[in-house]
């Protein structure tokens, strides 16, 4: 419980050569079609910046992000359409306590993103889901995403 509460506790880390690589996760959302369909199924895909570190299923709706223990992680949602609006409302899932410590942040006063940090004691796979605000309508991801936490240097624990 302590580990999971710590897992996404907000942290502003100064990155040095010894700090693990921060992972950024971006959802690409077909907002118009999601509104028309009434679901995000088939209308969202996820990528991150750690394919070289072992992330899998990039470009799908069930991304598994490889992340080192102790690393920071951010989530951002981007609409495909120029004049639509998308933001992450909440991070939820089987490990609710794991994500409840994640916090909404702002960058440049404009982009809303979520940020957390994986505790150094974390290990294994943590599934989670997100709810999004699509032009004023709340929608929940139909599939789970996963953080696959490895040891420092990418070594699987």
């Amino acid at each position: 419980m302590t580990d999971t509460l710590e897992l996404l506790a907000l942290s502003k880390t100064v990155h040095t050569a010894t700090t693990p690589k921060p992972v950024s996760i971006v959802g690409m959302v077909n907002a118009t079609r999601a509104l028309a369909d009434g679901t995000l199924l088939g209308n969202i895909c996820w990528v991150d910046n750690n394919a070289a570190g072992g992330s899998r299923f990039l470009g799908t709706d069930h991304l598994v992000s490889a992340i080192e223990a102790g690393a920071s992680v951010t989530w951002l949602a981007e609409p495909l359409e120029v004049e639509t609006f998308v933001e992450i409302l909440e991070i939820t899932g089987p490990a609710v306590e794991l994500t409840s410590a994640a916090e909404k942040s702002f960058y440049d006063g404009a982009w809303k993103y979520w940020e957390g940090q994986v505790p150094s004691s974390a290990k294994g796979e943590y599934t989670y889901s997100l709810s999004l605000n699509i032009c004023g309508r709340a929608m929940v991801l139909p599939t789970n995403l996963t953080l696959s936490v490895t040891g420092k240097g990418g070594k699987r624990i």
Partner: protein
Amino acid sequence: MIPQINILSVVDVIGALSTGTLRHSLFIVDNHPANCKPPSDVHPLGSRQSQTICSSGQASQSLITHVTYGQVLNWQVASIDLQTEVVIKKITFFRNGEEITAADTPCVLLGRYGAPSGEYWAGAVNKPGKIEPGDYQYKIEFSLTGKSMITEEFSVISVSN
């Protein structure tokens, strides 16, 4: 038919700058629906207009987007890393690997436009008679925190009636 095609590129700017290539750091998607059949899989007796058109190569550099004459195309770019900046500098079209001159462009009115959410590139597929149906490749030149990088692989718009 979707009235406008929106094409979003997401760039791992730090990854691209550190490796010197966009090869594993660029993901391009469009707003064609997922889980549909490409035109080549459409039954010969099926009406083209009644079919759902989709794209292939989603979330890769080699996205193939099926378009029709006159359709509007919008290109946006976003960075995976919040603290980095990426913008589209130029979009260049090719036919069979050869760069296309302005007179034969498959995409007219191509240029940078503004929107409340930021700048984007847009254009419209040229008229019938001006261009032949078929595949037109393109490359996107990005500015990654000031450094220019061009996609290594071709993305494609596949023009049909």
